[in-house]
């Protein structure tokens, strides 16, 4: 009987990694008890974007029972696991189709995808454009740190030309995506870009995106001190914050086509798209269900 598994242990193991001190901070109610500290490196921008999201939940008065966060794989993908909501840490690239299923099966849920540039635009690139095209009523928060952080700093679809990563040791020779241009072209109803320096703008964009009926896309330009910044000798996160301060400019009038992010170039920030467009469920109810019921 090869197939009879001999149980090594039957009792649940001690909770590992469990931390005390929960409740000391007023925003702790948005965090799962015992899960902090997080895994992100010191100086990483994801924590700042994560805090902005928690503040958005607070300021926007979003119902924690009715809000769900879906992540893919990677550093940003770990955000879901810290939030005191229904959260799903899914497969690489598939956060958006998973969120699509979640949203369409329970349309009253507010669904947010919190993930990274590699997850959403390389392996998940096909999904984001189609979710935007369909105008699925979800909010996608994309942390763009120009490389694959979790696996040690490889190049990806957002790595600027000439930038060095562990897989572009001679400098990146591929043209990168401009994420907000892509989101707009694919049909997103709301598109914004901020850097992690813009904590309030970022928070307000998240609130606006979550309240928007339709597909909202928010790009957050973020430092990766361990991977990208170190290999490109960009200095500390503090140096990068100064860089964002000196080089970002409000460009809401600008066509997203002209907002590409060249290597250490200027960073166009702001809200680029905010339009009304029927969502997938609007069309489903209005154009499909109404006819199907008559048959």
């Amino acid at each position: 009987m090869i197939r009879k598994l001999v149980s090594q242990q039957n009792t649940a193991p001690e909770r590992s990694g469990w931390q005390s001190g929960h409740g000391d901070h007023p925003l702790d109610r948005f965090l799962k008890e015992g899960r902090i500290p997080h895994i992100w490196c010191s100086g990483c921008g994801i924590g700042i974007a994560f805090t902005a999201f928690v503040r958005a939940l607070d300021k926007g008065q979003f119902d924690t029972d009715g809000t769900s966060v879906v992540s893919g794989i990677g550093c940003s993908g770990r955000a879901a696991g810290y939030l005191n909501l229904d959260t799903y840490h899914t497969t690489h690239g598939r956060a958006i189709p998973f969120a699509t299923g979640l949203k369409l099966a329970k349309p009253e849920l507010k669904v947010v995808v919190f993930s990274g540039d590699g997850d959403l635009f390389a392996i998940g690139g096909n999904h984001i454009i189609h979710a935007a095209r369909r105008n699925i009523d979800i909010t996608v928060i994309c942390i763009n740190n120009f490389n694959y952080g979790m696996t040690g700093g490889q190049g990806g679809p957002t790595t600027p030309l000439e930038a060095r990563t562990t897989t572009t040791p001679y400098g990146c020779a591929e043209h990168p995506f401009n994420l907000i241009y892509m989101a707009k072209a694919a049909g997103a109803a709301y598109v914004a870009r901020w850097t992690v320096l813009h904590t309030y703008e970022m928070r307000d964009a998240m609130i606006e995106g979550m309240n928007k009926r339709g597909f909202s896309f928010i790009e957050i330009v973020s430092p990766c001190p361990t991977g990208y910044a170190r290999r490109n000798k960009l200095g500390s996160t503090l140096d990068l914050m100064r860089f964002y301060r000196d080089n970002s400019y409000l460009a809401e009038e600008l066509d997203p086509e002209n907002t590409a992010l060249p290597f250490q170039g200027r960073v166009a920030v702001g809200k680029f798209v905010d339009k009304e467009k029927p969502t997938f469920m609007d069309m489903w109810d209005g154009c499909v269900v109404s006819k199907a019921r008559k048959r």
Partner: protein
Amino acid sequence: MRAKTRRADPKLLTGTHFMNGDEACAEGAVAAGCSFFAGYPITPATEVAERMSLRLPQVGGVYIQMEDELASMAAVVGASCAGARAMTATSGPGFSLMMENIGLAAMLEAPCVLVNIMRGGPSTGLPTLVGQQDVMQARWGSHGDYEVIALSPESPQEAFELTLEAFDLADKYRTPVMILSDEVVGHMTEKVVIPPPEAIGGRSRRKRKPGKRGFVPFAPGENEVPPLVFAGEGYHLHATGLTHDDHGYPVITPDAQERLVQRLVRKIRDHTEEILRTEELYIEDAEVVVVSYGCSARTTREVVERCRQRGLKVGMLRLITVWPFAEDRIRRLAESERLKAFVVAEINSGQIAYEVERCAQGSVNTVLAGFMGGRIFTPEELLPIVEAALK
């Protein structure tokens, strides 16, 4: 609808129909209360999607055609986590793409149903013609260790019934359940009788919602299966594809892996007898038992009947449940004094024959009647193999 129907409940088209196996799968799903379908067109499974796109808006469900099968399966898992009875349908190449998120469904213990209308492979193979070559892929296709349930209908009627039942099994064991149909059954049009509502019964998914205080979402419950809870119910649960503890939080240790994966395997493996369904024909005194499933069982049935008419002691074991495998049944048959051999009749190079041989090892011979696909084998092709095994 081509035949007499009673239009009382749009979910259940009670009556006698003339429909193909793909459509019968769709009707079985709708009868089970399936309210979400995500899919991608692929021959020979497209009719399932087509019928779901027609039927779901009539019954308050949602149909979405995704950009590919990766997305289809991911959306099904998402919908399942939101509380929908969710399904997709595909064939070989799409089945390969779905493997990634079948693993996610197994890990998140998200109940869902996946119809695979098998065609000939490998690769693009025979888009319009039959094969049964995805049997092992159904069992082992996604990486890592897990167990699934797979059911194989031999007729449109059974496609209806098994799809209906698949949703209950998926809920009971919190696992993806596969309908391993094939092009012959999928495209065959036959009489399908859809019973009245009282015969289907109420389909309650859980007895009660668990209490929220101190709730541990992945703690083993009845049959080692955690209770079903969904997004938006206030449990604030975290579900991850990473190895996790009973709380659902990632724990990357050998102990957590041992506990979790053992449970994922055992919740199905240890309940094989409850899950398993087989059909036995003339087994009692058989000297040769032909093991078969899906469309292959139709030819096998004819061969067994012809043998019996000639007084040859041949029986059939039809696997309605392909996975988990009927190993105890095979082992017991193999131990009987009178049995000379198993013949495994299937449209592949011996995927179930391997399993039968493993269970029969040392007791009786296992003979493969394997056909590579493109058509269903004829009784004349199978008969000589069975006759040889009798000698």
